[in-house]
């Protein structure tokens, strides 16, 4: 593609983003400010993830993009074709074959490996934002390791519902120091945050980048008498019969019949291909 620089962004912008990524990896879970650029898509469509992907992409990469686990949604298809066009990279829907996976709100079911990079699209990077609206204040709270408010919030869940009701964007303590927001992945995915792959998080509108190096300790916040539980819907996938994967509940007809289906379309398709 002529008329665009490799991977769309100009080189000075990539340098700035790359420096932020390196500091993010050096301080796992800490949100590094960066000068987010306007991208050819609206905020909320993954501008942060796209900028991080553009900064780490090499010509030899094979890119996969998922939206809530699915390869075939508008967002995933558009971002895949965007990078095919502006970087000339190969794309795939197979988790196993991808070197970079950009994701909105899911971690693939297929375990990731050492050579892979997972790039998250993040709407609100600050885990304390809904408890304390002032950026100056949340920044100070991270500096002082003052996370009591977050435990109060989780405790109030228990007081009100008998269990921790936070089901997505479940806060976790990274490397024993920074509480971070894993983006709105279901809490079912939280145990997978401890991974052999490199995980990068990009928030475009909020102008933050953060990262988890491989094998970083990630402890989902909980209490001794209410330990963390990676929950999912009880049921089996209507297509492949999987009971171990994260399931979406789908209304199947006008009478309100419901069924469950794997949220990870590649995982589901591979299981069906294997069974056939």
């Amino acid at each position: 593609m002529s008329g665009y620089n490799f991977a769309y962004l100009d080189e000075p912008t990539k340098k700035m983003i790359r420096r932020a990524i390196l500091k993010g990896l050096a301080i796992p879970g800490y949100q590094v400010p960066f000068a987010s650029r306007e991208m050819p898509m609206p905020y909320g469509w993954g501008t942060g993830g796209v900028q991080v992907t553009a900064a780490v992409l090499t010509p030899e990469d094979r890119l996969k993009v998922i939206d809530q686990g699915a390869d075939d949604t508008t967002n995933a298809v558009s971002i895949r074709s965007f990078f095919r066009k502006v970087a000339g990279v190969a794309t795939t829907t197979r988790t196993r074959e991808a070197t970079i996976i950009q994701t909105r709100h899911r971690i693939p079911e297929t375990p990731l490996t050492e050579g892979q990079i997972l790039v998250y699209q993040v709407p609100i990077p600050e885990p304390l934002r809904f408890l304390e609206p002032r950026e100056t204040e949340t920044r100070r709270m991270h500096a002082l390791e003052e996370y009591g408010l977050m435990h109060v919030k989780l405790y109030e869940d228990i007081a009100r519902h008998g269990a921790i009701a936070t089901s997505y964007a479940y806060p976790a303590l990274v490397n024993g120091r920074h509480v971070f927001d894993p983006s709105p992945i279901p809490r079912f995915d939280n145990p997978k945050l401890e991974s052999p792959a490199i995980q990068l998080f990009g928030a475009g509108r909020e102008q933050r980048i953060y990262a988890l190096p491989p094998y970083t300790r990630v402890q989902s916040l909980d209490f001794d008498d209410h330990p963390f539980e990676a929950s999912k819907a009880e049921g089996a996938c209507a297509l492949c019969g999987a009971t171990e994967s994260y399931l979406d509940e789908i209304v199947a007809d006008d009478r309100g019949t419901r069924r469950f289906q794997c949220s990870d379309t590649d995982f589901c398709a591979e299981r069906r291909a294997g069974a056939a």
Partner: protein
Amino acid sequence: MRAPGFADPPRDSARVFRAAMEAMARPGTAYAVTGPEVPGLSPAAAVLLLTLTDPSTPVYLGRAAARARDWLTFHTGAPAAEKSAAMFALGAWEDLAPLDPYPVGTPDYPDRSATLIVETSALRGGDARLTGPGIETEARLPLPDRAAFARNAGLYPLGLDFYFTCGSALAALPRSTAVEAR
């Protein structure tokens, strides 16, 4: 004649950054890079500067590396700086030590800290045992002054981050890595 920069900057720097990122994510593991021959610098140190520095990143150069100042200014526009104002510093360990003058970040912004690129003669072996994020069990790296790196790790989440360059290979040691004697 001034030494060249990257032949194909977008793609060359993308590949170098990937190696640099993998290295920072996996402390103690060496990665190979390719780049131009620059007097005063190892190829790995030269490509790190080309990939990461620009007019917004003051760079301190040690004695041998100072020969590359014109080259750096021409290709990246990075200004010269004292140790206390440097975002990047490059040189042999004797040029860079002690570590006290470099910015280690602030409690509110621990990312506003310097990255030191240490030219060294080996990236394998060594008597330092490394553990922490990015390391499954433990890693090793020959360190010029184990105590200085252990003190740096003690500042976490503040602190300096390091690259070690040897010929056309590089390895990293972020502040998050615990450094002990083995």
